[in-house]
C-alpha cells in the first residue's frame, strides 16, 4: 500500500506538486500580511518625519541584545494582545449569530481570492499516459477567472453590512451603509476598467491575461487609462484612503467595526490588509505583467500569438535571469546594510544611555544582511553561465525537466511578489498623502468621472481591437 503510493508519487511528480500548491498559495500570500503591516506603520512614520514603532524587542540574554527586527516584533505583540483579550459582546448587539459572523466573512472571502491569481507560467509536462499536460500557476483555473474573483470579492461586503447592522449602533450602521454604497458605485468602474483587457486578450481567464502580457506587452502599455481607473477603483474597493469613509474615524468612530474588539477586530483588520494584498496582486496581474520580468516581449521566434515569449526567454536564459534577480537582491541588501550602518554611527554619536547595546544590535543586523548580500552576489556569479536546453520537444512545446521548471516557478513567483510589494507601497504611500474625500465627492467621482472615462476607454479599445483583427 505505502509502496504503491510512493511509486505513484515518483511517477507523477507534477500532479503531486499541483496538489501541494492548493493550500500553499493562500498561505504564501498570508505571509505578506505582517510585512504589509510593518510597511504601513514604518512608512507612515517616515513620511511624517518620525522613527515609528521601534521599541518592542526580544531579549537575547547571552549577547545582551534586544532584537527589535525593524518593528516586526509588534506583529507578534499585537497578535498576543488581541488574541488573549476578553471577548466582549455589546448588550445592544443582535444576540443571534449575525454579530459574531460579521468579521469572519471578509477574511474567509479574502482567503479565497489568491486562488485565482497565477503565480507562475503554466508548466508543460508529459503525464504518465504520455499526453501533454500543463501544471497551472493558479489553484482554481476557470474560464470565468476574473469574473469569479470579482463575484467572490463582492461577497465580503455582506460581512461588513451584516456586522454593522447586527451591531445595532448608528456609527456602525452608517459605516456599513457607506460600504454598500461604495461597493455599488465602484464595482461598476472596476469591471469596466478591466473590460479593456478582456477585449484585448479575448478571455476572462487570469492565466490567459498573464500569458498575453508575456507574448505581447504589459497591460499598462496596452491600457494606460484602464490601469489608472482600475487602481483608483481598487483603492475604493479596499476602503483605503482617500476613499475610507467606511471607516471614517473622524466622523464614525471606527465605522462598521466600531462595536468589534479583541480577536474580532483583528479579523476585520487582517481582512482589510489581505484585501490590499489581493488588490495589489490583481493590479500586478492585469496591468504590470504578472510574473513576467521584461516589460517588452523578447524576440525568440514569434510562432503564434499566445506563446509566452517572456516565459520561454526566462527558461532559455535561466542562469542570466537568476543572476539578475540575485544581483538586484544583493544590491538591495547591501544598501539596507549601509543604511543600518548610518543609523549605528548616528546613534553612537547621540549619547543615548543604551548606545552600547543598540550598537551591538545594529552590528548583528549589518552582519546578517551584509552576509546575505555577499551570498546573493556569489550566487549570482555562480549561476550566471547556466543556459539550460529543453529536455524534449513535444508538438512544438519544449519540455524543460524538473529542475528548470522548479527554478523558473520560484523566480516567477518572486517577480510577482516584488510587484505586489511595490503596489502595496503605493497603497501606503497614497494613504499618507491624500486626505479623505467627502462622501458626496466620492459618489461624484465614481459616477460622473470614473464611469464615463471607463466607458469612453472601453469604446475606443473596442474600436481598435475590431480594426486590428
Amino acid at each position: 500500500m505505502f509502496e504503491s503510493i510512493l511509486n505513484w508519487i515518483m511517477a507523477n511528480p507534477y500532479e503531486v506538486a499541483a496538489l501541494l500548491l492548493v493550500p500553499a498559495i493562500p498561505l504564501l500570500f498570508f505571509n505578506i500580511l505582517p510585512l504589509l503591516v510593518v510597511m504601513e506603520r514604518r512608512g507612515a512614520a517616515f513620511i511624517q518625519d518620525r522613527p515609528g514603532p521601534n521599541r518592542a524587542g526580544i531579549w537575547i540574554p547571552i549577547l545582551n541584545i534586544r532584537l527589535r527586527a525593524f518593528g516586526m516584533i509588534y506583529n507578534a505583540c499585537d497578535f498576543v494582545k488581541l488574541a488573549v483579550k476578553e471577548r466582549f459582546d455589546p448588550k445592544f448587539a443582535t444576540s443571534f449569530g449575525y454579530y459574531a459572523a460579521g468579521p469572519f466573512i471578509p477574511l474567509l472571502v479574502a482567503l479565497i481570492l489568491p486562488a485565482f491569481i497565477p503565480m507562475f507560467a503554466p508548466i508543460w509536462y508529459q503525464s504518465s499516459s504520455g499526453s501533454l499536460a500543463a501544471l497551472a500557476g493558479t489553484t482554481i483555473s476557470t474560464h470565468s477567472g476574473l469574473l469569479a474573483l470579482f463575484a467572490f470579492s463582492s461577497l465580503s461586503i455582506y460581512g461588513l453590512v451584516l456586522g454593522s447592522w447586527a451591531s445595532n449602533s448608528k456609527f456602525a450602521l452608517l459605516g456599513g451603509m457607506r460600504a454598500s454604497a461604495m461597493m455599488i458605485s465602484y464595482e461598476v468602474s472596476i469591471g469596466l476598467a478591466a473590460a479593456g483587457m478582456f477585449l484585448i486578450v479575448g478571455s476572462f481567464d487570469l492565466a490567459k491575461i498573464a500569458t498575453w502580457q508575456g507574448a505581447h506587452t504589459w497591460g499598462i502599455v496596452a491600457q494606460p487609462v484602464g490601469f489608472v481607473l482600475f487602481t483608483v477603483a481598487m483603492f475604493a474597493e479596499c476602503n483605503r484612503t482617500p476613499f475610507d469613509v467606511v471607516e471614517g474615524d473622524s466622523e464614525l468612530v471606527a465605522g462598521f467595526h466600531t462595536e468589534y474588539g479583541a480577536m474580532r477586530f483583528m479579523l476585520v483588520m487582517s481582512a482589510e490588509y489581505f484585501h490590499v494584498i489581493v488588490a495589489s496582486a490583481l493590479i500586478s496581474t492585469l496591468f504590470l505583467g504578472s510574473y513576467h520580468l521584461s516589460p517588452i516581449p523578447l524576440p525568440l521566434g514569434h510562432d503564434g500569438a499566445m506563446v509566452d515569449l517572456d516565459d520561454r526567454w526566462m527558461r532559455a536564459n535561466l542562469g542570466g535571469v537568476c543572476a539578475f534577480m540575485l544581483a538586484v537582491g544583493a544590491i538591495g541588501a547591501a544598501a539596507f546594510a549601509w543604511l543600518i550602518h548610518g543609523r549605528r554611527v548616528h546613534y553612537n554619536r547621540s549619547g543615548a544611555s543604551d548606545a552600547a547595546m543598540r550598537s551591538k544590535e545594529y552590528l548583528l543586523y549589518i552582519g546578517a544582511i551584509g552576509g546575505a548580500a555577499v551570498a546573493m552576489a556569489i550566487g549570482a556569479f555562480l549561476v550566471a553561465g547556466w543556459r539550460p536546453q529543453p529536455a524534449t520537444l513535444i508538438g512544438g512545446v519544449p519540455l524543460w525537466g524538473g529542475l528548470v521548471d522548479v527554478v523558473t516557478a520560484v523566480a516567477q513567483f518572486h517577480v510577482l511578489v516584488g510587484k505586489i510589494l511595490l503596489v502595496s507601497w503605493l497603497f501606503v504611500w497614497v494613504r499618507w498623502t491624500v486626505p479623505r474625500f467627502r462622501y458626496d465627492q466620492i459618489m461624484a467621482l465614481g459616477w460622473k468621472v470614473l464611469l464615463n472615462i471607463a466607458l469612453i476607454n472601453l469604446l475606443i479599445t473596442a474600436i481598435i481591437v475590431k480594426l486590428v483583427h
Partner: protein
Amino acid sequence: MAKVIPRPDLGVWERLYIGEIFKGLMTTFGHAAKSLTNPAHFPTLLYPEQQPDIPRDHRSRHRLMKRADGSPRCVACYMCSTACPARCINIVAEESPDKHIEKRPVRFEIDLLLCVFCGYCVEACPCDAIRMDTKLAVLVGGDRAGFVIDKKGLMDWEPKDYPASDTQSQKAPGGSLNAKALEELKSGSDH
C-alpha cells in the same frame, strides 16, 4: 464685520486632480526618503535613552543644597514657604546643634502636584539652599504620595551631575571643591 475668505480659484490642471495628487506624492516621498537615509533628519527624540537639551535657566524639580559635611544649607526660615503662591512647601524646624546656626529643618516636603514651578522659593531663599536646576524633564509617580518629595529626596543628587563652574554644588560631599570647603567649615567661616 465678517471677513470673507474667497475660495481659491482652481485652474483646469488643479481640477483634474491627478497631477496635484502626483505633486503631493512627490512631497511625501521626499520626506520618506530623507527619513530612511538620514537619521539626523528626525526632529523626534528617543526619549528615556536620549535626554532633551534643557536650557540652563529651566525651572524643574527642586533640590536642597548641601554643606561640605552633607547637612542641608537650609536654616528653616520659612521664607520659601511664605513666598510660595501654591503653598506646596511644608517645613518643620528644630533647634540646630551648631551654635552659629539657629534652626534646621527636621522635615522639608514639597508637593510637586501643587507646585506651579514659579521659582519664587528660589528667589526668596536667603542662603541659596533651594534650587530648581535638576533639569528633570518629566516627573514620574505611581500615586499622589509619590509626588510629595521629602528632605531625603530633595538632597539626593550628585555634584558630578553639575558643572565645575557651579561652585556651590561642587562644595557638596563628593564635589571637586569639597575638601577645601570642609576646612572652611571647620574653621567656622562658611555658614
